[in-house]
């Protein structure tokens, strides 16, 4: 009988359950995808050329587990808030605590198991399609990535079901300890935390100290090694929580005393925030961390994506060199956005390659100079023929224009007459420097392929910056991919975290806005009020998250050594991310308006 009642209760709120289930499913799916990437040994071996990459994968996995724990706790409290009224009612009607307890336990566990099962299937599908799509978009090739990987399935199932068993036990204890009356009126109880100045001050100071330790730990990752990340994670979480606790309440109380609070709905807004500040601090802490991690991961990912071509540019004075161009190659070369191009005739004889001085004088060879610090100078330069004959012929990029099976030919420059008489295999080579490597990746890729078919450089060597870029992409591509992947994962989790918060507050708000409607508050004013309230909820973790990221990027300094930098060009990434965040805010707002705003009867 009670089981039937419980089922009816679930049916009544199936929309909320659907959201909960969808959120948990997404989380399980993301975890599976990541577990697949992180534990798939064949995949890691094939791609983790850089020793730190496997470390980064491990770090990502730990982070994801921690976030998942928090996330499930959060989802669970949403579940409980949804059900406690019903449970209270059952108890009032005479159901024993034991019976209700069983019900709670089963309900949580069943929901969790279903979410995990669907999540793993979804994760399988996503690994297959989404990961492929992402790799394609980034132009990366990661070998040995199979969607189906048993250890990852086991890891996901064990973690999730384990967590849900814990959550069920927690719910059981929570519910059997609360009085029936409290359960029945849970959403009406006023939660009015006291402000104790001394305690707030201590909390605030502690918060700042913790944050400072966390930020320092991230910057000192070279010294602290593996301990840096757990240390930073714990201290930043604690610090953020304490800081929010110490400040938000005080700010709200302060504002409440001003005349501003007595205008229009401002007082109501502050009352709402004050009313829920305790739930909010926890949620805001989690969301700000998720925000930071999502933004940080995407910043790092896009940092690699943007900066790899930049670094590649420094590798060679020309983007590509084509020997004895064919009509097909000619066609591809026409597609390039050329900044500088030169064509030379070579005569290869023995270990020497001869060049025509006339050609070199007409099309001087561009060269790279280095500063004392070892940094390359920003612009290329050219030498007079005389100077070039002396030193320029030793230029690595110039030498690379004539590569034999064992290495480079020794270049020699002859006058036009001597060159005409010189015997040897005649080859023409065209060097092209494009304006922007990123822009011409496609034709360059094909050109490089065609060129390598006929004039493959010795193993381990590359000619021109495009080929250098390809090699580096293989090196750093895994990191880049992880950045984007984790970023999207965290963003999705952030989205559903906020969603839970908002939905769990909606029934209460529905009542409150209905009252405001009766008292005669204009629809617009209510809309604005809601926009402000939700806006504040989005803004606080957003600001905190950006600060976290600015400090957190320090962590990647060792991984992105000069000329790369984790901070280079982050503005555009931030803008795009914040744009997404704003869109998410608007969607949430529209949803909330639909749920909460009273229907006007004039229709």
């Amino acid at each position, binding site marked *: 009988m009670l089981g039937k009642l419980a089922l009816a209760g679930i049916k009544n709120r199936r929309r909320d359950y659907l959201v909960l289930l969808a959120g948990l499913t997404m989380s399980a799916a993301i975890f599976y995808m990541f577990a697949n990437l992180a534990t798939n040994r064949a995949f890691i071996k094939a791609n983790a050329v850089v020793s730190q990459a496997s470390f980064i994968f491990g770090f990502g996995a730990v982070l994801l587990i921690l976030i998942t724990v928090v996330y499930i706790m959060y989802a669970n409290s949403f579940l409980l808030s949804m059900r406690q009224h019903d449970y209270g009612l059952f108890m009032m009607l005479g159901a024993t605590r034991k019976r209700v307890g069983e019900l709670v336990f089963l309900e949580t566990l069943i929901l969790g198991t279903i979410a995990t099962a669907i999540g793993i299937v979804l994760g399988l599908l996503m690994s297959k399609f989404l990961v492929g799509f992402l790799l394609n978009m980034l132009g990366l090739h990661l070998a040995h990535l199979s969607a189906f990987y048993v250890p990852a399935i086991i890891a996901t199932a064990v973690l999730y079901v384990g967590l849900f068993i814990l959550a069920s036990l927690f719910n059981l204890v929570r519910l059997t300890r609360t009085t029936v009356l409290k359960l029945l009126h849970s959403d009406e109880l006023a939660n009015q935390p006291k402000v104790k100045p001394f305690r707030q001050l201590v909390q605030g100071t502690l918060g700042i100290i913790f944050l400072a330790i966390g930020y320092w730990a991230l910057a000192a990752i070279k010294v602290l090694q593996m301990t840096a990340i757990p240390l930073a994670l714990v201290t930043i979480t604690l610090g953020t929580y304490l800081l929010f606790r110490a400040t938000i309440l005080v700010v709200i109380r302060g504002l409440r005393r001003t005349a501003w609070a007595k205008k229009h709905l401002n*007082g109501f807004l502050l009352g709402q925030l004050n009313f829920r500040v305790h739930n909010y601090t926890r949620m805001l802490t989690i969301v700000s961390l998720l925000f930071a991690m999502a933004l940080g991961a995407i910043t790092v990912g896009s940092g690699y994506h943007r900066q790899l071509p930049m670094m590649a540019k420094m590798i060679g004075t020309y983007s590509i060199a084509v020997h004895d161009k064919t009509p097909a190659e000619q066609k591809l070369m026409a597609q390039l956005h050329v900044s500088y191009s030169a064509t030379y005739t070579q005569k290869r004889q023995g270990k020497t390659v001869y060049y025509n001085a006339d050609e070199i004088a007409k099309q001087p060879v561009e060269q790279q100079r280095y500063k004392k610090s070892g940094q390359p100078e920003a612009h290329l330069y050219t030498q007079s023929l005389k100077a070039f004959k002396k030193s320029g012929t030793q230029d690595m990029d110039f030498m690379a224009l004539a590569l034999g099976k064992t290495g480079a030919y020794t270049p020699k420059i002859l006058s036009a007459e001597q060159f005409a008489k010189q015997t040897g295999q005649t080859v023409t080579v065209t060097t092209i420097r494009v304006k922007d490597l990123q822009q011409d990746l496609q034709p360059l890729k094909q050109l490089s392929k065609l060129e390598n078919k006929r004039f493959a450089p010795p193993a381990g060597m590359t000619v021109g910056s495009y080929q250098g870029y390809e090699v580096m992409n293989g090196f750093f591509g895994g990191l880049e991919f992880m950045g984007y992947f984790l970023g999207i994962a965290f963003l999705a989790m952030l989205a559903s975290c906020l969603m839970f918060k908002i939905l769990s507050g909606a029934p209460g708000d529905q009542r*409150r806005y209905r009252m405001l409607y*009766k008292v005669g*508050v204009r629809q617009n004013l209510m809309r604005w009020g809601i926009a402000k309230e939700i806006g504040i909820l989005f803004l606080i973790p957003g600001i905190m998250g950006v600060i976290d990221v600015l400090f957190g990027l320090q962590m990647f300094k060792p991984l992105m050594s000069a000329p790369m930098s984790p901070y280079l060009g982050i503005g555009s990434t931030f803008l795009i991310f914040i744009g997404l965040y704003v869109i998410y805010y608007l969607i949430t707002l529209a949803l909330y308006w639909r749920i909460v705003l009273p229907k006007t009867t004039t229709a």
Partner: protein
Amino acid sequence: MTTATTVVDVHGLEKTYGKANERQYKALKDINFSVAEGEFVGIMGASGSGKTTLLNMLSTLDTPTKGDVIVNGHDVTQMRGNQLADFRAQEVGFIFQDFNLLESLTAEENIGLPLALKGTASKIMDQAIHEVAETLSIADLLQKYPAELSGGQKQRVAAARAIVHHPSILMGDEPTGALDSTSARELLDLLTTINQKQAMSVLLVTHDPFSASFCQRILFIKDGQIGSELKRGNQDRAAFYQQILTELGTFNE
């Protein structure tokens, strides 16, 4: 009664629930009555007779299907959107059976809400709040939250919120419904005081003869129509109470 002193004027009011293609229910049929300025009028009737429906029409929470409702010179059936909200905020004070206090605000903030909506200066607001708190003897409760108040106290706070902005009419839908007899009596005495001292018109919906006996005039609704009317005249409350009981006896047969 001349129109100049009429606060509420209802003509041929009809309300049909349900859309044209659904099953329809006529909750109100051709209602006509008026309330003079400063009058204390009760509306009585059995459960489901249409009392709440009528009050919702008057307070613009719902729109009539047909007929006119004129409150303090405004034809509320012609209003739309913001006009309706502003009308409720300025012309009507409302006390509900379930208090309808915002639990996230203190008593003081709850009472101040109608003034805040008007954009009243905070000094004037404080003064007004304290004045009405004095009248309703809730001055010492102002800093408390609704969860910390008893039912009777909550309803007094709600009454304070309903009159703080001096609306032209105070409406109550079973305001004593959730109160014990002592608290109910206190509230009714307060309503009487407000009605007499501030000359504020009061419209009280109730099915309880005791509450109704505080009114000067009572309209009886049956099946969506006004069946009869009873005037207190110069009788004292106890005699009027007896008269109501007798009327109810015949009215309900």
